[in-house]
């Protein structure tokens, strides 16, 4: 299983010389299963570069298919959708899974993003590829091709955000972007979702100090991420979804602090990395 990061930033893309190393694009991760199937996690602006790389293969000829999992409908998780090249090639097919996003169904959410006031294509029906939208069941296994998927809704300010677990070919990955746990930490169901995975990609938007000032945002600090990793006994933790104001230097510091925090847990077997655009982790 190959996991590649295309966008690692939270809230809004943050271009500029200060973010060149980790990258300024918003959330998007691709997962290539051992069978060759493709799963895409979230569709922030990083999806544009993923799309460009996919067009060099079967997706460029209208022969590609993939599953897209959307954690929630905040802009930084869907704003790359209109700019994902493979959506515009007839013959490609996509199954999109998402939560109910408040009262609104997935299709309605994506359609509103494409509406004439906001985007010239006016409707995702005009994009060309075949798209099927499905609500994702929570806390139960769903079989998609050779993979077993499971989702759990984490608290995230006023709207929940889905965390996903993907298992295939004896390897496992959990993706938990945008998680704002209560003061007693992650609920047992979330820890169960992350349990023993080879790679946990976890929201680490803030330092603990910055998080304390912005609790209402419903996002994690690096300590929340590290504590989850330790409790769930994961093998590797990738910090993810950095605050838009954090420079590469600030993110270096987040990673260093994450490693020190792990040492406090005496969970020294866990490897901590900082997710960066272009980085591939092979499991």
């Amino acid at each position: 299983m190959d996991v590649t990061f295309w966008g690692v930033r939270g809230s809004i893309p943050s271009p500029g010389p200060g973010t060149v190393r980790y990258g300024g694009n918003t959330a998007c991760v691709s997962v290539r299963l051992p069978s060759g199937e493709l799963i895409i996690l979230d569709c922030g602006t990083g999806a544009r570069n993923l799309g460009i790389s996919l067009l060099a293969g079967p997706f460029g000829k209208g022969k590609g298919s993939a599953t897209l999992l959307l954690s929630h409908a905040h802009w930084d998780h869907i704003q790359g959708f209109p700019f994902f090249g493979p959506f515009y090639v007839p013959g490609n097919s996509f199954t999109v899974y998402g939560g109910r996003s408040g009262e609104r169904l997935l299709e309605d959410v994506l359609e509103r993003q494409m509406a004439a006031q906001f985007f010239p294509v006016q409707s995702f029906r005009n994009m060309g590829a075949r798209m099927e939208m499905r609500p994702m069941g929570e806390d139960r296994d769903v079989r998609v091709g050779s993979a077993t998927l499971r989702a759990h809704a984490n608290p995230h300010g006023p709207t929940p955000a889905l965390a996903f677990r993907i298992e295939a070919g004896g390897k496992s990955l959990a993706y938990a972007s945008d998680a704002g746990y209560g003061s007693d930490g992650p609920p047992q169901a979330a820890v169960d979702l992350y349990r023993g995975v080879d790679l946990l990609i976890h929201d680490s938007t803030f330092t603990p100090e910055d998080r304390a000032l912005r609790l209402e945002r419903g996002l994690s600090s690096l300590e929340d991420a590290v504590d989850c990793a330790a409790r769930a006994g994961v093998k590797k933790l990738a910090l993810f979804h950095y605050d838009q104001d954090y420079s590469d230097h600030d993110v270096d510091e987040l990673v260093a602090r994450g490693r020190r925090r792990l040492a406090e847990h005496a969970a020294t077997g866990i490897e901590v990395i900082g997710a960066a655009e272009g980085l591939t982790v092979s499991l």
Partner: protein
Amino acid sequence: MRIQFWGVRGSLPVPGPRTERYGGNTSCVEVSSAAGTRIIIDAGTGIRRMGKELMRAEFESGKGAAHILISHTHWDHIQGLPFFAPFYRAGNKLFVYARQRDDQNLRSVLSLQVDSPFFPVPFHKARAEVAFRELHDGAQFEINDVVVSCARLNHPYIATAYALSVDGAKVAYIADTAPFTDILFGHEFIAGPPSPRSLLSKSDHKTLRTMRSQVVRLCEGADLVIYDTMFTPEEYRQTPHFGHSRPSDAVEICHDAGARMLALYHYAPDRSDAEVDAVLASTRKEAKLTAPKLDIVAGFEGLDLALGKG
């Protein structure tokens, strides 16, 4: 008159090493008069850093005022608005202007962006005083000491060009527009380039001619024209239906209007810094023949120009 560029990119923000010099943020330009009137044109992601800058002064204490002119509500022209810090400070006064629409008022279009499930903070929780003003094509009005004029542009869902005059200087802002020759854009979806046989109707031709002459009039004698130059000639041939121009279109308009300086603007997301350098060089070279008196620069994040007095 002082003009500062905060975002020069079209379509979507493009972070990364290839765009470091010109910048990856979407459309946003700030114009301020010597007397202190502050006008912001478009609210792409570039407005976020400007907002942080404003919070160092009177906006921090809730005593700031700014006028935001929106060319149109495509994402790359409004997506920075929810991240504009002065919105969240009580006492600040913000005036938002855009073209009047038949179907939906400006406040409700912009509200959609920050409503659930897209954004956690809805409009009514923004603490600043926000007022909306809708404009008709060809409107002319004053913002304190600044005279603002508007003209319709040729773009899907229709965009507005603005010209601002103050301190004895004039700047025109033209994003986004297609040339006024091949397609007449309105509200309908256009799926592809026009077929070679489908000619524009006489009345569409006339509408485009009129539109162009009004844009030229808007730019008449301008000290600076900021113009959508998203496409290379080859890209325009392939996707004329996207509604954007080439540098040669911008040069022609500037020449016809007798403008002094052109700033290339609203670059395609794929355009690297080196490619913008090359576009600038070739545009200058060609303009030596077609518009010898025109000064040409390429807009970049941080470009700061002083025109007229002040």
